[in-house]
């Protein structure tokens, strides 16, 4: 109970975020007339197909037009085009909420399905794999190196990392990915430049796994390379601030071993703000991974965005992706919020 309440309060914002994004989707689709255009196009296509079929039976062109006109009206009612978008789209939004995402125009899932749900969901694990791996590596490096740097404040290493962190903010993740491809795959031919598996993919589980690792290496290195500087720097600063607090002095006065002081009285106290830092970094990591997947042709949601945008745009896929992406973000955030609430007793105590 004491854990649940603050978590609920904090999750509410995320639910708000979710609905705001949904609202933006509906408004954008409606106000720009995009939704209407798409539906008319769909109806037009269907009518053309039917005209060809009807041409077999109906000879008289006037009658043909009449039949088709009637059919058009039926279809407009069926697709909801007869009602304005602000009646139609909320219903669509509700439908989307139940994960009924419609069908793709050109894109297909790996096993050929044209259901957007299939296309998108099979990409989610791939994206998560990349994201969580790099997040965990970044956090681990950050915590170890950050805590270490905090003990050598002002050293050349400390200043170097601060500078490196500042530079990291100025570097686009995806460009680093491209550079790595140029150097490591094209010039030195050490690592594969893209994709998730070699062609043809190994069939044995173990080689298959190592193949995946080899392909994941570059994107993961890219994501880590750009984010570990800021991560170390922020964790160093948090740790440094906590190390100066009175309770740490007292822990030392208690004659506790230094390792225990660092672990229980500095790092443990730093955990909640570090999680907060992760939460703030999450949106950035997600965006970073969209672009990095594109660069490395990693079959995740980010690459799907690129594929849906390039060539013939696939509207349904883009709408669904944005939706699923936000959903994913909100879910991870709520998990992190729960972790935060669990780690920081001060939040649990609200009354």
């Amino acid at each position, binding site marked *: 109970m004491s854990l649940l309440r603050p978590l609920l309060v904090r999750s509410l914002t995320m639910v708000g975020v979710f609905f705001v994004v949904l609202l933006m989707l509906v408004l954008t689709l409606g106000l720009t007339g995009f939704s209407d255009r798409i539906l008319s196009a769909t109806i037009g296509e269907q009518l053309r197909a039917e005209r060809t079929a009807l041409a077999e039976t109906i000879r008289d062109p006037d009658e043909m037009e009449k039949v088709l006109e009637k059919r058009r009206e039926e279809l407009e009612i069926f697709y909801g085009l007869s009602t304005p978008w602000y009646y139609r789209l909320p219903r669509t939004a509700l439908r989307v909420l139940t994960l009924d995402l419609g069908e793709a125009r050109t894109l297909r899932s790996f096993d050929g399905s044209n259901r957007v749900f299939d296309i998108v969901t099979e990409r989610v694990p791939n994206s998560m794999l990349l994201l969580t791996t790099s997040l965990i590596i970044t956090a681990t490096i950050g915590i170890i190196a950050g805590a270490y740097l905090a003990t050598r404040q002002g050293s050349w290493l400390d200043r170097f990392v601060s500078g490196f962190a500042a530079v990291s903010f100025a570097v686009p993740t995806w460009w680093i990915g491209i550079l790595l491809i140029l150097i490591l795959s094209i010039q030195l031919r050490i690592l594969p430049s893209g994709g998730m598996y070699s062609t043809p993919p190994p069939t044995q589980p173990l080689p298959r796994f190592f193949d995946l690792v080899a392909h994941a290496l570059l994107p993961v290195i890219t994501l880590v390379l750009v984010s570990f500087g800021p991560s170390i720097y922020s964790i160093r600063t948090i740790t440094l601030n906590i190390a100066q*607090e*009175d*309770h740490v*002095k*007292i*822990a*030392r*006065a*208690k*004659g*506790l*071993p230094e390792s*225990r002081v660092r672990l*229980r*009285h500095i790092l*443990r*106290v730093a*955990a*909640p703000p570090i999680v907060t830092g992760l939460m703030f970094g999450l949106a950035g990591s997600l965006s970073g991974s969209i672009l990095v997947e594109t660069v490395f042709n990693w079959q995740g949601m980010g690459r799907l965005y690129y594929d849906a945008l390039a060539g013939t745009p696939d509207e349904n896929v883009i709408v669904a992706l944005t939706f699923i992406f936000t959903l994913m973000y909100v879910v991870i955030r709520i998990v992190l919020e729960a972790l935060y609430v669990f*780690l*920081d*007793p*001060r939040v649990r*105590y609200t009354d």
Partner: protein
Amino acid sequence: MTSLLDVRDLTFHYADRAGPVRAVDNVSFSLASGGSALGLVGESGSGKSSLALAIMRMLPTNVARYDGEVWLDGQELLGMAENRFRQEIRWRKLALVPQGAQNGFNPVLRVGEQIIEPLVVSGAAGKREARARAQELLAYVGLPADVYLRYPHELSGGMKQRAMIAAALILEPPVVIMDEPTSALDASVQTQITNLLKRLKQDMNLAIIFITHDIALASDLCDDLAVVYAGEIVEIGSAEQVLLHPSHPYTQRLLASIPRLHSDTLPQFIPGAPPDLREPPAGCRFHPRCPLVFEPCAQKSPPAFEPADGQMARCWLIEDGSG
């Protein structure tokens, strides 16, 4: 030397951008035995908190000078190996209740865990045993048993102060240093705490070093008083001596600056401000503010004179009076 704690010529300077800050200069005092309290009284910036940290060997990284001797129970502490000092002295022989105990607790651990931590880590007791001991102490300092399982932010300032005292007592140290333990508390709670400390002195035969800026408050607890000014002890003696027959003009002025509740005499003030410890005045450090200043004061630093048996004061006037 039979005294429990003996501080001799303790000096501690730390470096600042502008040069060394002479926070503690040539300080000597001793605590005769358990069951008594020594008050270290001084204004903010007089170096009294640095003195506590110097005794505990909790020094900042920018130490410029650190020497002297601290004898506790026949052992010299300053020369002791760090590891041995940590294991044998800290909290075991010398505990510290810091200024503003509000921040003395780790905010994410339960109070009880933090009280028993030194006991459990040293391996002297199992968790259950330690807990029983902590509960006992909590009851002794007047806290309900459930405080053990609470988090620090769930306690009021007064409760945290009591809990901190309980924590300091867990290893039954002979000496506890308390740095302004009541300054952030309301008057009624402050009295509760000093009452508790008086009982502690007697019940546990504890020696307390009580650091405060309020000489009246120190008188409420302390058997001996040391007056600190600009990094030096200017006067030390029994409570009676210092309060009733103060020898140093600074002590006299400090006493006169207390607003007396039951007297119509207005509190007096000491003109000027305490000196910058980076460049303390030559000679007696108090002489620029002293109303009784005369020739030698600015020339030479006064040595420790003994105006009465067991009383010490650094003031050239005493030499004059006695000689």
